[in-house]
């Protein structure tokens, strides 16, 4: 309940500001799924990341206040598009943050192409750095190609040679499966089968038995969220021996599925709170306001918001083209002390970390879930610029 009131308050402030000539203010439009299957990972938690970055600046840049608008796109492109359009027309929004759904991000990407608005996206479809790339848009997540490589390659190197896919039956799942299949075959391993599940599915026994029967060493989960949690729980009940390889596994998923169901799972992640002192310090700060440590999607909201605000400060205006240009030319300071850079097509070159989930015996309690086992260099997984279909790169 409290969150609704704070959101209402933010909106009320924003509405009040919208009527005055607000050209100088910095307005961040936080457009995300605040409800639904991904809300646990991004939603309010991502917004908290944005707020922490604004806090770093004391709530203002160059003497101008920073305003945050919050919108719930409900995972529907038409809803997201109309919210974004209204913010641009009515509220002089300067940057759209999160947009954590591929369909919504694609729709908004069309809208902002010739407008003075930047966008930092938390969706991963490769199109957004390909034919739908834009001069003012940046991708905070790994795109599907990079993510597939980051998850698959280290495991193939460790001996996993037969892969089976359980894929959510819509664009994201199919794209992820296609990219991972490419990475698997290029690395000399084999895909022994695949099956899809409908977005309405609640029982995955048929898929799991099919996977078991295929003799796969690994079951790649080209799905996420609540579906993935159910799959992992059922896999444990059935005593499935093949290793589960999720692509999107956040600490929140482990928390809800239980470490029992997800022990000894390998994968790759952009950020883990217990990696070093710097991440632990940030996690402490995040937890103080939100009640749990940040997951990777919350961390990049903080990193990108801070980077954007630094850009506004350095450039001295909110001109989207100039600020985005600054953001590309200067490295992003990551929470864990490393650096990342944004390429011309909007892809963020960043190191990711391979992990193994702990066993319940190893874990010291809630949120102590991962053991970071290595670093995957940004260049090893990035989709090569030479093959890019982005007009900004080819041109």
């Amino acid at each position, binding site marked *: 309940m409290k969150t609704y009131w704070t959101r*209402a308050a933010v909106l009320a402030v924003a509405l009040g500001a919208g009527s005055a000539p607000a050209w100088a203010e910095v307005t961040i439009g936080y457009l995300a799924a*605040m*409800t639904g299957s991904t809300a646990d990972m991004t939603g309010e938690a991502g917004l908290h990341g944005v707020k922490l970055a604004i806090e770093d600046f004391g709530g203002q840049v160059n003497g101008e206040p920073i305003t945050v608008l919050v919108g719930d796109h409900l995972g529907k*492109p*038409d*809803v997201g598009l*109309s919210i974004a359009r*209204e913010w641009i027309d009515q509220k002089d929004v300067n940057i759209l943050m999160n947009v954590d759904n591929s*369909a919504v991000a694609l*729709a908004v990407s069309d809208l902002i192409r010739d407008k003075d608005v930047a966008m930092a996206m938390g969706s991963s479809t490769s199109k957004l750095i390909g034919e739908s790339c834009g001069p003012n848009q940046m991708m905070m997540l790994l795109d599907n190609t990079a993510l597939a490589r980051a998850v698959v390659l280290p495991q193939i190197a460790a001996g996993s040679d037969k892969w089976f896919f359980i894929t959510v039956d819509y664009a994201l799942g199919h794209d992820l499966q296609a990219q991972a299949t490419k990475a698997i075959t290029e690395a000399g391993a084999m895909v022994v089968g695949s099956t899809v599940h409908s977005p309405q599915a609640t029982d995955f026994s048929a898929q799991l038995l099919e996977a078991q029967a295929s003799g796969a060493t690994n079951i790649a989960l080209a799905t996420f969220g609540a579906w993935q949690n159910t799959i992992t729980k059922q896999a444990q009940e059935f005593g499935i021996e093949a290793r589960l390889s999720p692509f999107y596994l956040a600490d929140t998923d482990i928390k809800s599925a239980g470490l029992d169901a997800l022990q000894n799972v390998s994968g790759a992640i952009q950020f883990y709170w217990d990696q070093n002192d710097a991440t632990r310090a940030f996690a402490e700060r995040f937890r103080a306001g939100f009640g749990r440590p940040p997951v990777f999607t919350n961390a990049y909201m903080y990193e990108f918001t801070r980077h954007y605000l630094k850009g506004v400060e350095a450039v001295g205006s909110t001109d989207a083209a100039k600020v985005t240009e600054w953001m590309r030319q200067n490295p992003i300071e990551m929470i864990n002390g490393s650096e990342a850079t944004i390429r011309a097509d909007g892809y963020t070159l960043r190191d990711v970390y391979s992990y193994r989930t702990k066993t319940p015996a190893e874990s010291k309690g809630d949120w102590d879930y991962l053991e970071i086992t290595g670093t995957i260099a940004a260049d090893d997984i990035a989709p090569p610029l030479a093959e890019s279909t982005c007009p900004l790169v080819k041109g």
Partner: protein
Amino acid sequence: MTSPATKPQDREAPRMTERTTPQFLGFTPARAAFFLVFAAVVALSPLVLYPIFLMKIYCFIIFACAYNLLLGYTGLMSFGHAAFFGAGAYLCGHAAARWGLSPELAVLSGTVFAGLLGLVFGWIAIRRQGLSFAMITLALAQMMYFIALKVPFTGGEDGIQGVPRGHLFGIIDLSSNTALYWTLAVIVLAVVALYNRIVHSPFGQVLRAIRNNPERARSLGVNVDRFKLVSFVISAAMSGFAASLKTVVFGIASLTDISVNVSTEVVLINLVGGIGTIFGPVAGSYIILSLEHFLSPYGPWLLLIQGLVFIMFVLVFRQGVVGGLQKKLKSHL
């Protein structure tokens, strides 16, 4: 919800005054006054409200008028109008984005396609009445939803995106919100006038006769099924027209347009505004879409509030806002 066969509000409705009051194009003085008020609101509201939001209301007014023609004036309750709305939206989007048609031709193709679909669905559905009719339309609409989800041309979850607004008749640049607003304003006023004309024409009188008592209409020599079918097709085509305009305004046709929520929303709009009235769909669209727009920050609570509104109107204002007004004023609105 009222049963389509017998409509209690007809019996409570004021006595017919149509014969005695002077009429021009279906406008009695009372309806003309309401129409002028509506026109004034359309002309002045962009000064205070966001034009895109108003344009969305106008699209839904057209859609709700289409629905009311069927429910309010022909006595057929369809739960499947999302199929026509979605079909119009998708074809208009496809025509504008991929065939490169101008907006007027894209809207026309969406309208015609929805009309043709209405012909097929109507031909199947009007063989049954009441609940069976409603269920057949619902089933057909769900089939359309599934098709839209699966076939590649609709873009699945992504929808058809980046639909260009283009130039109306090659001259008026619709990419400016102002130009688009006035285009929509003229269209919505024209559609409400046309809708009023249809209802208060001899054709509309036959429809109302069928609504009030189909057996009696048949005994008087009316080909009931044919009139129902024509009404159904007009309603479907108008729904497709509304959806096409919406697609041009928002630049996207998506699964939302063909989902069952659209079908229930149009019922709700008419229930709140007043079933079987000319201005009910207008008032209902303003009320329901404003609720959605201004309460959207409260997320899921919106559904609760919508539900309460629905219950309140069913229990307390069974005739809707305009339905209640016309009882007070003793004149058809």
